[in-house]
């Protein structure tokens, strides 16, 4: 599969760094090219890059890709051009932020297109949206993007998804939100961790016996630093035991000045607002910190990259229980309900007092992060693309109908539109029974999905009962590209391959084909095996066979019983030894009349 991966590659973009690691993992399974959406100083990559930002004519080449992926975040310099490209050619959008208001405000207003901004605010959010935007232009109220809450209220994400065949986000929470109004496949993935350098011991360098708290990132209200300062101010005893370092640009802005004033007025000399620090200093501070205070509210990001960084180097983290933080297992970070001052104060106390708690949090954090590998991310991303592929015909049909209605000049208010929508809905089934397996023959386009299926099922639980061929990508090639006269079938749930069955042997010259079936280790016990078996046996007469054979181990009681109930007769039993245990290999035959 050939993928075009649109991303910023600027050294200043965290998404750029994320892209490097994810595409490196993807490149082990597919061909990936990077399409660079900004013209900053770039990170280095081993993959081929296309600077479409400076040369838009390159976009004509997109036709050669099987899949196009667009990384979209709330920043116009990094994502504006990518958004534009996505409008020309639909693809999978990876949405990094929960609001894209800043992106579009800058994108349109920066180009002097106030009309477009207002038109979108009205179309998407009605009169209310239009009025709020106009109030900002009249100077009656501040711009929407200056308030996190308002940016989330008018996210303009709808616009970011106009070219989306499917969407990937990095928390279940975000996926659920999106699923409430966006029709189409949404993949809930995770932010991958790609540095596992626990270069620093769990015990930090000393700070006069005080516990060091650290908050990183651009200094704004979203970081909720004032909450911590309020608690310290109300609890001088606690304040004396703590060094609180707040690191990141923006200390000279309003919020920063507010904090400095507060700290001064309350005598919080353990608090230092250090402003911008270069990377090596930040790394050192991070390594030396006892606790990372990562309170963010409201959740603006899909998931927090800073959190991942803190987890992967094994730091105790204090966070609000929302967004991506909510999904981290309980023992790995400390989560408090947002707005609950009592709980926050308590949590601070416990973290400061209990060194052994900090130690166990640290190791749990690192363990959790160890699962968040780019390789796993790549595999799950490809699962999402399966779902997208499965939805594609639906999307195409609906788009086609919508296009024609537009061409016909049909106003959306006409009652006919609703009736047509209903008819279409019955046919393309928006997902009334999303879990129902779809059974069909496997074709060439399934090669990649089959490779993943075999690889993830190359586990003893599966291979002890099923081993007609190696569970590798090479086998996938054989089965899909060189099936010849043999037949392979698959069961798909929401586009994901969860089981395969086969009638094979014709290729090798046998008259009687052998039947085989294998179900994904995570989908066993749900009837998929039986469905595939019946499906395959139904088709056998059409494929020219008068009978079907199979072999099953006596120890595989469930399968043996099923075959007997389907009319297979035993013709041979052969004692075998498997891993030191005695078993029997039973050959069965079914006559097809």
């Amino acid at each position, binding site marked *: 599969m050939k993928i075009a991966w649109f991303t910023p590659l600027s050294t200043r973009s965290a998404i750029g760094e994320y892209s490097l690691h994810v595409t490196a993992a993807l490149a082990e399974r597919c061909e990936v090219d990077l399409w660079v959406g900004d013209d900053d100083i770039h990170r280095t990559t081993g993959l081929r890059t296309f600077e479409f930002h400076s040369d838009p004519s390159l976009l004509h080449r997109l036709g050669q890709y099987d899949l196009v992926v667009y990384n979209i975040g709330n920043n116009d310099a990094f994502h504006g051009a990518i958004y534009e490209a996505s409008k020309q050619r639909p693809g999978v959008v990876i949405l990094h932020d929960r609001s894209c208001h800043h992106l579009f405000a800058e994108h349109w207003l920066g180009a002097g297109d106030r009309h477009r901004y207002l038109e979108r605010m009205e179309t998407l959010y009605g009169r209310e949206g239009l009025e709020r935007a106009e109030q900002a232009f009249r100077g009656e109220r501040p711009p929407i993007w200056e308030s996190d809450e308002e940016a989330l209220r008018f996210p303009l994400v709808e616009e970011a998804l106009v070219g989306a065949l499917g969407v990937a986000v990095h928390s279940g929470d975000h996926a659920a939100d999106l699923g409430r109004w966006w029709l189409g496949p949404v993949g809930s993935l995770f932010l991958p961790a790609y540095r596992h350098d626990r270069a620093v011991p769990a015990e930090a360098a000393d700070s006069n016996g005080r516990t060091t708290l650290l908050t990183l990132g651009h200094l704004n209200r979203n970081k909720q630093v004032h909450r911590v300062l309020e608690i310290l101010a109300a609890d001088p005893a606690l304040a004396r035991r703590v060094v609180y370092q707040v690191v990141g640009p923006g200390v000279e802005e309003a919020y920063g000045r507010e904090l400095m004033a507060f700290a001064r007025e309350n005598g919080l000399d353990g608090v230092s607002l250090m402003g911008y620090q270069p990377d090596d200093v930040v790394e050192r501070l991070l390594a030396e910190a006892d606790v990372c205070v990562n309170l963010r509210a409201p959740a603006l990001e899909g998931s927090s990259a800073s959190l991942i960084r803190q987890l992967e180097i094994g730091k105790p983290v204090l966070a609000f229980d929302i967004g991506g933080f909510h999904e981290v297992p309980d023992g790995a970070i400390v989560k408090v309900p947002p707005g609950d001052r009592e709980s926050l104060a308590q949590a601070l106390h416990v973290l400061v007092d209990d060194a052994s708690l900090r130690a166990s949090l640290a190791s749990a954090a690192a363990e959790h992060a160890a699962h968040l590998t780019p390789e796993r991310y790549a595999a799950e991303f490809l699962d999402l693309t399966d779902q997208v592929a499965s939805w594609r015909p639906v999307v*195409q049909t609906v788009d086609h109908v919508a296009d024609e209605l537009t061409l016909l000049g049909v106003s959306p208010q006409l009652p006919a539109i609703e009736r047509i929508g209903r008819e279409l809905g019955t046919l393309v089934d928006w997902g009334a029974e999303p879990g129902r397996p779809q059974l069909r023959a496997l074709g060439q386009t399934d090669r990649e999905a089959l490779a993943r299926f075999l690889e993830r099922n190359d586990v003893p639980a599966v291979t002890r009962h099923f081993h007609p061929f190696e569970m590798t990508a090479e086998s996938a090639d054989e089965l899909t590209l060189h099936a010849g006269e043999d037949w392979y079938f698959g069961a798909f749930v929401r586009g994901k391959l969860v089981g395969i069955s086969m009638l094979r042997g014709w290729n090798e010259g046998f008259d009687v084909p052998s039947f085989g079936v294998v179900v994904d280790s995570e989908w066993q016990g749900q009837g998929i095996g039986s469905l595939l078996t019946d499906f395959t046996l139904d088709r056998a007469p059409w494929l020219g066979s008068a009978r079907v054979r199979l072999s099953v181990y006596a120890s595989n009681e469930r399968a043996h019983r099923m075959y007997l109930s389907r009319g297979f007769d035993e013709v041979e039993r052969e004692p075998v030894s498997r891993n030191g245990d005695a078993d029997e290999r039973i050959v069965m035959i079914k006559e097809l009349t």
Partner: protein
Amino acid sequence: MKVVVLNVHVPFVRGGAELLAQWLTENLEERGHETELVRLPFRWTPPRLVIDHMLAARLTRIRPADRVIAMKFPSYLVPHENKVLWLLHQFRLAYELWATPYQGSEHGHESARVREAIVAADDAYLPEARAIYTNSAVTSTRLKRFNGLDSTVLYPPLRDPGAFRCESFGDYVFFPSRITITKRQQLLVDALARTRSGVRAVIAGAPDIPEYLDPLRETIQREGLHDRVEILPHWISEEQKLELYANALAVVYPPLDEDSYGYVTMEAFYAGKAVVTCTDSGGTHELVEDGVTGKVVAPQQDAMAEALDELAEDRSLAERLGAGARAKLDELDVSWDRVVETLTS
């Protein structure tokens, strides 16, 4: 009453179903109903177009009409408050032919989605009809099995049964039908290469696509059957057809899992000729009984060759089975009076 017969139209293609719709229209008119035959366009490749055409059918309005008789997918999806179905078959690629060599070359998500849509449409809209009739027990069985729907068998009559005649039992077997993979003309040609009696074959019918003739011609070439196999790759005239039936030794008709007994079978019976069919030919078994009205053999070249030789070497057998076929027709009451009355009641 004002009756609309609703069928499907693939430009420049005419086959059995088109004829039946036409005959139905004529017979309705003859019995005093104001009748109109409406044919809706249909195309099924690439698979996604099937959904377009299903939706188009749902959006079609047939007015004014007191009664609509719909016969084929997707035209039977057209909404009408007084709709009756006379089904020849559903869209087979979505049902019994799905995931078999007959589905075609498209195996992937698109065809799977389309198949889902077809089943969803059948499930949702077939029950809209006041009554469902089918052309054979096979079709009814499938409808029950795939969609849980009950239906009544209403056999389609020939247009003009009286025209068929038996003149002699000649030296050729006759296979008149559209030339397509599922009709299995290839089986006859292959079998002929294995016969010992020198029996000949005449194959007549338009190929669905010209390419279907290539493998047949290749076999004829390879096996040196030029003198023994005659292919008339086009629609032949009524005259020619009656002539060929009249003088055939027997009729060969071995389609794969046919929905009904097939016009060919019935035509052969009216001409008093035995029919050679296969064990997996489906609906033909409703008429063809091995040893009584014809021969039923395994779908293999050797089995077919054996049957052909048997008939060629024993003309009295061919005659006896032919007579049996003719007698079978008297047993069944297949008539246009019955059909029209049922469909307009």
